[in-house]
């Protein structure tokens, strides 16, 4: 069955139409967000709407970047997300090594527990966390956020890391062991360095989750100097009349770190995801 040239041409045209409809669905809302961040607040709901109008300026961005309170949201988000990423990567390398290279009594059970943690709803943990974190004296602290975020970043990170280690041949570490290296040395000198692609995808994924977290940031912090970007946007919505252009500017700025990370590492990221998790 060989398709004729006309048939291929028609299929091509249909594909292009579908591609463009899809791109509108996915991309136009984002384009509108960016466009609105350059408008004045008066022109946000102008009739008829225009992508770019006479009020085009960087004023909304300057307002966000000139406000120490809002810059603080960014500082907090970066600090918490980076801490969570470092802790999650180290912990998941250790756990992944254990799952990938050792056989032990409770392995199967612990594997199930770690996969199962992914289905524990944050809202279930929220009420006891509140009491627990206050009791530990960690209420309104970075430590509280880092620890609670890790519950949700860790299980997926361990699954991805285990999956990655499983793709590396065992002969490699056994050779080092015979040469007298302990298992710990093997892990950090040999396995970890060659697992860099896996580690990068775990790191990017963790950073994204931590950067985006909302519920615990909302309930476990109290003062504005501890708030993260998602909560900052929430607060901006509650305050004074809606400053749409500023909220859009804050949204664009708040999405840039994840977008840049994603664009830089998408190859690793997608490969890591398919290797680690969704493998029936």
């Amino acid at each position, binding site marked *: *069955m060989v398709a004729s040239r006309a048939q291929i041409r028609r299929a*091509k045209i249909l*594909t292009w139409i*579908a*591609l463009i409809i*899809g*791109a509108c*669905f*996915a991309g136009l*809302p*984002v384009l*509108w*967000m960016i466009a*609105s961040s350059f408008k004045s607040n008066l022109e946000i*709901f102008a009739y008829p*709407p225009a992508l770019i109008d006479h009020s085009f300026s960087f004023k909304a961005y300057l307002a966000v970047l000139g406000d120490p309170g809002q810059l603080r949201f960014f500082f907090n988000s970066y600090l918490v997300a980076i801490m969570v990423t470092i802790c999650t990567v180290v912990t998941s390398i*250790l756990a992944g090594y254990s799952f990938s290279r*050792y056989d*032990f009594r409770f392995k199967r059970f612990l*594997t199930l527990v*770690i*996969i*199962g*943690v*992914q*289905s524990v709803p*944050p*809202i*279930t*943990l*929220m*009420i*006891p966390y*509140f009491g627990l974190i206050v009791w530990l004296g960690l209420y309104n602290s970075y430590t509280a956020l880092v*620890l*609670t975020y890790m*519950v949700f970043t*860790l299980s997926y990170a361990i699954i991805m890391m*285990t*999956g990655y280690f499983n793709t590396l041949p065992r002969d490699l570490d056994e050779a080092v062991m015979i040469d007298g290296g302990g*298992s710990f040395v093997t892990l950090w000198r040999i396995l970890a360095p060659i697992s860099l692609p896996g580690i990068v995808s775990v790191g990017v994924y963790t950073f994204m989750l931590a950067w*985006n977290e*909302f519920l615990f940031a909302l*309930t476990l912090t109290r003062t504005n100097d501890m708030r993260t*970007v*998602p*909560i900052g*946007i929430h607060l901006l*919505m509650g305050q004074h009349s809606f400053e*749409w252009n500023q*909220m859009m500017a804050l*949204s664009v700025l*708040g*999405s840039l770190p994840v*977008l840049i990370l*994603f664009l830089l590492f*998408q190859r690793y990221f997608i490969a890591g995801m*398919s290797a680690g*998790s969704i493998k*029936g």
Partner: protein
Amino acid sequence: MGAGIDMAKAQAISEIANIGWEQRKRKFLPYAYLSPTLALLAALTIVPIVTVFLYSLVDNVIINQNPPVFVGLENYEEVLTNRKFRGALSNTLYFAIVSVIVHFIIGLSFALLLNTRLIGNKTKALFRVIYILPWVFTASIIAILWRLLLNPHGVINFVLLELGFVQEKLEWLSDRDLALNAVTFINIWAGYPFYMVSFLAGLQGIPDDLYEAGRVDGGNSWQLFRFITLPQLKPIIVSLALLDFIWTIHQFTLIWMTTGGGPMRSTEVLSTYTYKAAFSSHEYSIASTLAMIILAICTFVGIFYVRNQRMTDE
């Protein structure tokens, strides 16, 4: 001589002891590597779940002057017979089931589009980035963006009016009859890229010879899709649908920041209902009971997910 034999004996004994030590170390090491994970999960998953379960069996917990009273399953009875709870449950199920189905359709369609041989690789890479875009935005940003787009004076109403699809400006997020569908649509927009990315990886894993064989047997493209692509993707589909169902039942931020569960509880889902019970009405026992019910639903679905998922190659 005697000393030499003793030496050899001692060495042998120490070697045996050493092997014993090595074996013990080998038994103990995997747990040592897992210890940070286990400590964290015990402290921040198991203890809290036990705590919330105990809260749900008791009245007067947290912020309350009166001593706690054990009430058994009374809180569950109170919740399960409550009309507000049933409303929230049915909204949650509608929200989750429609989201999962449409996520699957859009995710698979986009993945197939991006996997076609009819267009060049560079074009595909560009469209792939555009299609993934919704994924890089956090739920609170997605919420605020769609509140702008769906505003009665917003751009979506303008386009629909110009095209003649609607006769008047619609109050998407504050009309009782529209709000639940509107938030479901927003969740669909936000969530399909996860499916798309997973399906893309899955499609690339299907060997070409399967399609070759199918074509030789005279299969048309629909048959190739129906009898090769879908069965090959089945494990991925099941995993994704179950995980997405659980995640959608969790969804709090998106609804909290678009409608807050309103108007007139028309978009109230279990998570917003629980949050309000805890932090607005300070009924911590009721909130804990709700939290346990959500956990039960997610665990039920989670069991199927875990059974479908094999982490280590056993």
